[in-house]
């Protein structure tokens, strides 16, 4: 019985932690991701693709209002079931800035939400660079400081909140099924715990007669 109680208490603690993680991720404000998507469509999507994500899938997952979706589709000249492809040709952008803009669907996996947040806040004016800006995290980065106008308009604190929303959106694009993953995990952990109770009792029963 001692084993059973120990095991169950460990499992209950683990379940508590995973449930907390799950709920916080579910609450993980859709509003922030929606707003991030809006920022992305205005500031990023002309150069950077999200080629593994389709417009309608994004609208469905993030509950984006139909008029907003229509606006994004119109400005990009795409249909709802198209993947989110950059408006500008990558080769042309590479010629202008020195490097092709990478696809950003999985960028969070290549780095981390934290890294991306710091990177977007690390731009500074640099007259030596052709783009007029440079970055503390990635020196001599080819990407220009596209958010500088927004930064100046909003001031530091409000700008940081905008960047956080953008990062939260890209965190969604990297793994749209994150919530499903958490919920599956919780359900399977509960199942395993219940499954283990008769197994532990059966084990005790069988092994009782072995000295």
């Amino acid at each position, binding site marked *: 019985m001692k084993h059973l109680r120990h095991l169950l208490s460990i499992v209950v603690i683990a379940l508590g932690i995973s449930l907390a993680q799950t709920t916080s991720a579910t609450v993980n404000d859709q509003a922030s991701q929606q707003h991030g998507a809006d920022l992305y469509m205005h500031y990023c999507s002309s150069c950077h693709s999200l080629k593994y*994500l389709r417009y309608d899938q994004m609208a469905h997952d993030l509950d984006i209002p139909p008029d907003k979706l229509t606006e994004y589709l119109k400005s990009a000249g795409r249909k709802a079931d198209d993947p989110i492809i950059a408006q500008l040709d990558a080769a042309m952008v590479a010629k202008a800035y020195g490097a092709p803009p990478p696809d950003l669907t*999985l960028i969070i996996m*290549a780095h981390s939400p934290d890294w991306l947040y710091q990177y977007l806040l690390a731009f500074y004016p640099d007259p030596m660079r052709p783009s007029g800006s440079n970055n503390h995290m990635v020196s001599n980065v080819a990407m220009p400081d596209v958010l500088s106008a927004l930064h100046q308009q909003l001031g530091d604190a409000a700008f940081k909140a905008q960047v956080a929303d953008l990062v939260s959106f890209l965190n969604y694009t990297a*793994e749209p099924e994150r919530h499903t*993953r*958490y919920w*599956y995990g919780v359900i399977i*952990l509960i199942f*395993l715990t219940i499954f*283990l109770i008769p197994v532990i009792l059966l084990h005790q029963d069988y092994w009782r007669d072995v000295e």
Partner: protein
Amino acid sequence: MRLFIWLAQRLPLREWYQRHLSHYYVPKNLNIWYLFGALATLLLINQLITGIWLTFGYSPTLSGAFDSVVHYVRDVPSGWLIRELHAAGASMLFAVLYLHLFRGLLYGSYQRPRELVWLLGMGLFLVLMIEAFCGYVLPWGNMSYWAAQVIMDLPTAIPGIGDDLANWLRGGESISQVTLSRLFALHVIGIPLVIAFLTLLHLTGVRHVGANNPEGIEIKKHLSPDGTPLDGIPFHPYYTIRDLLGVGVFLLVFVGIVFFFPTGGGLILEPANAIPANPLQTPAHIAPAWYLTPFYAMLRAVPDKLGGVITMAAGLALPFLLPWLDRSKVKSMRYKGRASSFMLAVMVISFIGLGILGLTPVDHAVLPFIGNQLLAQILTALYLLYFLLMPLYTKFEACREPPDRIGGAQ
């Protein structure tokens, strides 16, 4: 029931059940270290099934490999789950195998009459490493590509035929479509067949000679009048229920990783593999999967390329020789002398240390006051000495006399 009788008249069902389960006598004192063989089998089956499902959606072409995996993960219902079970399954398989191997070292499971079981197991381990390497390349991320580049360049260290051998293995001067096709074919057909065959032999061997136990004494020496070992109990139901319990607890851990830590902090799914293979962009730090890093560290420890390859090969080959290196009269560490315990501890610490070094960039010092290169050399030497000195310390150390029967006095 009639179906069973019909079948039993045509197949040795009853005999099979008795031979492998109800009348397969196993020592009654097996502890938690004896769980990992069962877990390895479970994980092997997991790899097989999830692997078949992944093959449904995988395209082994330079232009399609990366995208096909990403689409499988994102667009196929539960595709993410199948990929994660396969990726985390590989990591867990090696974790479990290392524990299984350690059990062998601890209780002398490689000693007579289990030399062949040990050799088959080590062979399996080696083949699984090759299988894991092939699988690591298939998603065609940037780390896949560069790891393949480094590993498949190793044969060039061999004098004379090295370059030709490397080109022959790669199917060209560099990693190409030819290489990818080969690794795919080997990963999904060639090597799995070898693994299945070796697993069958490994298990058949164990059942023939009987399982060792923590005391390292033979239960077949003391039989009851009906011919069954006095200190043995039937595998079923005793160890089937115990393994089921172990599997349940293991699954709690496995599920925890699969659903809540799928990247394993970059050890299961590497960040650099989120970027497609790019021959023009070398990742800042190239490292193989964590379970191969101890051997990678041995390779890097020696400044000379050929010397590194020889050192790594020695690190892989010496464990095969254990049944003949160990001159001890007793099997289990419980009755061996202090030297054996000490050397085993030194070896395990060195091996883990090498694993950490293999994961760390060369210029990123792990310990203060000592460079990674020197540290790797010391740990490699200690690891190799565990094997090379074994004939001496096992022969001359003072052992205790093991009891005649399990749980009994001498």
